[in-house]
């Protein structure tokens, strides 16, 4: 097989034998994972389960010890334009001198190529992305002046402007108010309903059944994966989280 051949093209995300280690301690162990296109998928697991690392390894931000990852059958380097990434909000300094529009425009930098500056067309796209997260009125606002929920929406708009087929979000609902959370969920469901795939690292087990239709349970290894209705079981939750979690929301 050469690098350009499609491998498992019928999955939006295909992960095989992925192992990641920091200083000899395995963070992800032998991950085999498939997410079909058109689902809204939650990745859940206890602290230290490797949820963020899984996303970063898939996106080539963390070097794996072993294994490979394919997006729509392609290695990430060839599928970048089809994948939009929303990192955790806390990973950047929001005191950076930029407006909301400036940040969203950065989502287009990968596509623009060397020495080209964003022009009128790019600004219009960025404004449309801000519109989609109900932040158009804040386009000219410095990001330092935005609330946490507004900053999160700007981050999502930065991925939306890429017009990707797969969106990968790391804890987008962490530390935002209930109104923002509802807006984000509605937006993500809208993306899924238009045929896009959405993968979300999620920390709130209570809302898994309401928000998502696909579920990956992770704790260093993959504990379970599949439709939420099949995977969200007391047995799986116990295996992923240990005895510490009480099943909320009754039988799936």
């Amino acid at each position, binding site marked *: 097989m050469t690098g350009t051949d499609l491998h498992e093209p019928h999955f939006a995300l295909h992960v095989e034998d992925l192992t990641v280690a920091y200083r000899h301690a395995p963070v992800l162990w032998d991950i085999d994972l498939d997410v079909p296109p058109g689902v809204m998928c939650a990745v859940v697991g206890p602290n230290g389960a490797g949820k963020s690392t899984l996303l970063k390894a898939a996106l080539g931000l963390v070097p794996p010890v072993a294994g490979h990852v394919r997006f729509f059958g392609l290695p990430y380097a060839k599928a970048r334009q089809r994948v939009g990434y929303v990192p955790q909000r806390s*990973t950047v*300094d929001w005191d*950076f001198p930029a407006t909301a529009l*400036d940040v969203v425009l950065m989502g287009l930098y990968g596509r623009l190529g060397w020495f080209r*500056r964003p022009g009128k067309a790019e600004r219009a796209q960025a404004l449309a992305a801000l519109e989609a997260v109900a932040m158009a009125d804040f386009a000219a606002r410095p990001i330092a002046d935005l609330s946490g929920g507004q900053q999160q929406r700007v981050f999502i708009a930065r991925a939306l402007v890429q017009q990707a087929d797969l969106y990968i979000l790391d804890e987008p609902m962490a530390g935002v108010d209930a109104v923002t959370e509802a807006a984000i969920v509605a937006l993500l469901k809208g993306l899924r309903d238009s045929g896009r795939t959405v993968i979300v690292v999620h920390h709130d087990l209570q809302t898994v059944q309401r928000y998502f239709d696909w579920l990956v349970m992770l704790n260093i290894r993959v504990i379970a994966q599949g439709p939420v209705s099949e995977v969200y079981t007391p047995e799986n939750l116990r295996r992923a989280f240990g005895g510490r979690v009480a099943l909320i929301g009754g039988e799936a």
Partner: protein
Amino acid sequence: MTPGLDHTLGIVALGAAVLGATGGMLGSFAVLRRQSLLGDVLAHAALPGLCLGWLVAGRSVVPLMTGALLAGGLAALSVLAVGRFTRLKPDAALGIVLSVFFAAGVVMLSHVQAVGGAGAAGLSAFLFGQAAAMLQADLVAMAVVGGGAAVLVALFWKEIAAVCFDAPYARALGLPVGAIEALLTLLMAMAIVVGLQMVGVVLMTAMLIAPAVAARVWVSRLAPMVGLAAVFGVVAGVGGAVLSAGARGLATGPVVVLIATGIATVSLLLAPGRGVVWRLVRNRRLAARLEGLRVLDTLRAVAQAHGDPDYPAQTGMIAAAHGLPVDRQLRQLQAEGLVAAVCHPPEAAQHWVLTPEGRARLAMVGEKA
């Protein structure tokens, strides 16, 4: 003044302007990436490079600058290596590399001066800078390096901005983040090389940090920040050159640094929105407003205790219930139209009632259960 002096002042002022513009522009990225200390390391590490350049070619600007650039690059790599192969925290890695390179530089400096005789005396000028010894060739070299840095920044502007704000995301987009980070380090070393003659290795880091910090509090976008930092740098540079030319015994480099840090101090104190003074005033206003609200709440409680929402309460009674003097707050609340002064015959003392506006303001905080 003699024409010769004018000529020197012209060269010094131009050099200081180039230094200020370059330092301000490139320092902005260092400050935003929280790498100001790396600038200090590169500056101190330039000293052994300067000594080597001197040993090879004597007082000649290109070998000196090359030596400083190479030593800075070696120091930057050392910081990376210490960080990767030991468990030292970044600040410790920076401190150790700075000390080692600077110590090596001082040892080489004293050795070169011991064996090199009078000719090598000029080398120690690079410790704190010696603007007066600047030659036209130095100015040309500074302008070339500074101009080159500006061109690089303009060419790679959007990549630099993306890496400064969110490097992992930039990498996910496919931007060559490692190369841009290396470019930013190289640019920082270039800024330092520009300043060596003028302010020297010890103080150079201030010319990176101070203009950038000052600019940040006045503007809130990247391009204006970089531009304003360059302007502040030029003002400090030219101001320092002119000041030290007009007075005897003022070293140009340190004066330039003092002006730059002075601009930063004033900016941090006074800038609207972000300045310390501005925030103090705002906090005091908020505190006064809160205190007024509490007096308003007390007035309501007193009226309620009398079973009449429009009960006129005497100033002393409100103060007793509040536990603190309330005259000033009541007058302020009256000015805002939240309370009204009324007469309560037959008593002569001032009495107060809540106005509808006052009741509306109280509704914002609800009522004690």
